[in-house]
């Protein structure tokens, strides 16, 4: 039998939570994914010295794409801002054509348990706001069925945007 005393809320001293070390940040090219050494970048330039077709962005090391990886950069209105070279091939598009288009023109949610695009959209908006952390979504190319890709979604910068890495 539950006593009145046992049911009363009470304050207790607890051990402080172990603070999670923030993931280190790395630089990468928005087109080829090359990770430049910060000291090697020319002063005042954000253009990739390797391919010359991308700008240097920054994100958490545990979500940053590998060199030659397929990824997109999206803003909070879900518009495409950058498409990597590998993503161009994967999604059969080109960056100049894809920029400013809605993300669902290129990718659709494909998770069996997801009923709509809310999860993908919410994850992108959440990341583009600049919140930390990584979310995942299952997507497929908008014009292709039968392909499922896992997308890691996290924030990137310098101006807050969502980095969507296709694994």
């Amino acid at each position, binding site marked *: 039998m539950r006593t009145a005393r046992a049911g009363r809320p009470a304050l207790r001293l607890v051990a402080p939570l172990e603070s999670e070390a923030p993931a280190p940040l790395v630089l990468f090219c*928005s087109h080829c994914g090359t990770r430049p050494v910060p000291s090697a970048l*020319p002063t005042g*330039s*954000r253009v990739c010295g390797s391919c010359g*077709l991308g700008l240097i962005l920054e994100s958490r090391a545990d979500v940053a794409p590998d060199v030659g990886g397929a990824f997109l950069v999206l803003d909070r209105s879900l518009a495409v801002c*950058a498409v990597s070279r590998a993503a161009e091939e994967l999604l059969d598009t080109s960056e100049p054509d894809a920029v400013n288009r809605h993300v669902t023109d290129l990718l659709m949610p494909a998770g069996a348990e997801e009923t709509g695009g809310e999860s993908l959209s919410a994850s992108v908006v959440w990341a583009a706001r600049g919140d930390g952390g990584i979310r995942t979504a299952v997507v497929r190319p908008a014009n292709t069925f039968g392909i499922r890709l896992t997308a890691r979604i996290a924030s990137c910068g310098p101006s807050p945007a969502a980095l969507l890495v296709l694994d």
Partner: protein
Amino acid sequence: MRYLKTSEAAALLNVSPNTLRAWERRFGFPKPQRSPGKHRLFTHGEVAALRDALQEGLSISSAISRAREGLAADANSLVGALASYESERADTAIEAALALRSVERSVEEVLLPTLDEISRRYGVESAAWAFAAHWATDWLRRAIRLTPPPIRLVSIVIGDASRDELDRDAPYIRALELFCVRAGIKVLSLSARGVAGIGDAATVHRTNLVVVAGGHLDDDTVARWAYAIRLAVGAMPLAIYRRGAERPRVRPTGTTVLPSGAGDAQRTLLELLESDQVAAHPSAEYRSPPRFARGNR
């Protein structure tokens, strides 16, 4: 208008000249003009706009998109000024466009699209179109007058077959005239209605090529005008500009149909004028059998 060489533009953007050329190939921006020696010349305004957009951009494509949007604002402000009948504000808008572009590109990318937009929104029977067409014609004529004297030894006669300055084709014809004059060609632009004395005019002008521009006048009127020139100076190359591709009676055999864009039309004309056929047959000596009358009936 300030122009930058490739190395100067690359230095301003803090990239290599090869990168700048790669951007031109991939994105078509910044879009250089060519010097007489075929070297690239970038407008300072475009390069500066791109440099600013790159500061906060997430990719080269998105930065270029932003820079283009900024440049397109000139067209929007000109539409607004002309639609509200404010000629001074329209002058300011076109001056702003000229600060970022050459005269040719200001006309092609700002002035003519603005007129297209106004005619689309309000129709060519509207007061807004009347105001805009009058302002644009006046501006283009002023620009023609301010152009230095011709440097090439070639001249053309433009037979203006448009209705009047309210004709939708009229600004394009003035723009072609401006581009030709700025390319150093001697241009005589007359209405194709004026047949009497046109032969004398063409002779005095030492015409190398005839352009019939505009689609308002019927083919018979235009053919009479062209025939009068042929009688005076002999047959010569004929080009047709904005006569209307859908016209069932036009049979442009033996003539060159110019592209509808003023810049493309000017480049085609320059190629025609630089071809051996035209260069070898200035009007005074060129008296081979008639050619264009057959194709223009």
